[in-house]
């Protein structure tokens, strides 16, 4: 693509046009790439959401499906300060969160009462 007859003869006007055109090409190129990546991201986000929904369905089937009254009726673990309600958080992660909080506060876990633990989704922030 030789735009100019010889590069040595380039005038200021031609240089200006080349500069503007070049900047536009970079912008347009990356803009189209952005659109492509947005579409790709949207597809993967939708797929991820579906998988999460399916997973939380399975989890809620095992955890939250237990009615509150039933949860309350489960006997407390020895030394425990009470029940904790979990929203979209697997048991293992909840245990980890409670351990981290207790460690950071330097208090024994059984002196802390966690009321609920909920995962905050990035789109909720």
């Amino acid at each position, binding site marked *: 693509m030789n735009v*100019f007859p010889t590069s040595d003869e380039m005038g*200021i006007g031609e240089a200006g046009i*080349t500069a503007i055109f070049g900047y536009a090409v970079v*912008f347009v190129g990356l803009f189209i790439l*952005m659109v492509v990546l947005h579409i790709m991201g949207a597809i993967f986000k939708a797929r991820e959401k579906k998988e999460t929904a399916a997973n939380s369905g399975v989890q809620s089937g095992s955890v939250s499906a237990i009615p509150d009254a039933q949860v309350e009726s489960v006997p407390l673990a020895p030394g425990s300060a009470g029940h904790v309600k979990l929203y979209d958080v697997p048991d293992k992660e909840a245990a980890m969160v409670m351990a981290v909080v207790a460690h950071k506060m330097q208090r024994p876990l059984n002196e802390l009462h966690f009321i609920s633990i909920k995962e905050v989704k990035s789109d909720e922030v």
Partner: protein
Amino acid sequence: MDIFETLKALLEDSGFMGFFLDGGWKNIVMIIVACVLLYLGIKKQFEPLLLVGIAFGCLLVNISNFYVDGVSSPDALYHPELWEQFLDESSEHYHSYGNIMANGGLLDILYIGVKTGLYPSLIFLGIGAMTDFGPLLSNPKSLLLGAAAQMGVFLAFFGAVCLGFTGPQAASIGIIGGADGPTAIFLTSRLAPELLGPIAIAAYSYMALIPLIQPPLMKLLTTEKERKVKMVQTRQVSKTEKILFPIIVSMFVILLLPSTAPLIGCLMLGNLWRECGVTARLSDTVQNALMNIVTVFLGISVGATTVASSFLSLQTLYIVGLGLLAFAFSTVGGLLVGKLMYKLSGGKINPLIGSAGVSAVPMAARVSQDVGKKYNPSNFLLMHAMGPNVAGVIGSAIAAGFLLAVFK
């Protein structure tokens, strides 16, 4: 054996006599320049991996070659006249690597890797393997900041034409604003090889000076309220997306601008090796061993082009000035679009990440992080700035591809 005659012959043969030849003082100046660059690379740690090699190449070429009337010294490591013949269509050695191999010195032979575009492409392979494009994938809008930050490339190009440089020379000077050393070397070696020394030195020096160049501009163009903006954590990117990314970018960008194929192709191949999960050995090799080997050759052979007779000219001063202008305006371009995104997003995007759109990975992103943290200690902009930062690498490769397509 006549001892005095032998001593006289040795003295006449020595490089010291070269200082008394016509223009020999220029070699002394270049030796001082090389020592200053060595000081900056070693003591001040300005891009030491490349600058030390470039500086030592500069030193070697100027103590081994006293280039007088177009003829190099007999034991020169680098022969500018051979490369002039290589580029001269009327010469019998036009495009003859055989002539270089047969008559060149060590640095001539190493320089073949620069001339063919081999070293910059291999460096890009390593950069690809070292780069996580996750932040860009989680926020594709970063690409616009990477595009905006190419403003300095085209403004410096325009300025260079106004100062009397030819189109290809102006394009090579402008690409300094892309803040991407391998891209600058790749484009310059193709379009204006006679300017390679000053352009490479300007590009790497300014890249090292980013923490000094960018913060005043960031402060000047943003308000305190904007600098304090805390950005929301971006989404996690799946492995499949990361694998698809280099394939999609290669196909799209190379189809759009085929001249970007060596740089974008290598960058994305390196990244694919990193992300695909089944080529860990290759990824490790290109980002460590190969990268180091190529850096050794690239530094020393670029330094070799700083021959006193061509380096010490008014052109070099213009290139240094225009390079600074290019860097500054690239930063300004990124910041202005960052401000626009701040407005359009209702204050959710911190415009400071715009300055990271100049490539210089990860230095420019670190500067965004440091400046942001200064105004809001709880702010963590690094990952947000990495998006525009890696977008800048793609942007500068596209800018170089465009200029190459226009002027080759």
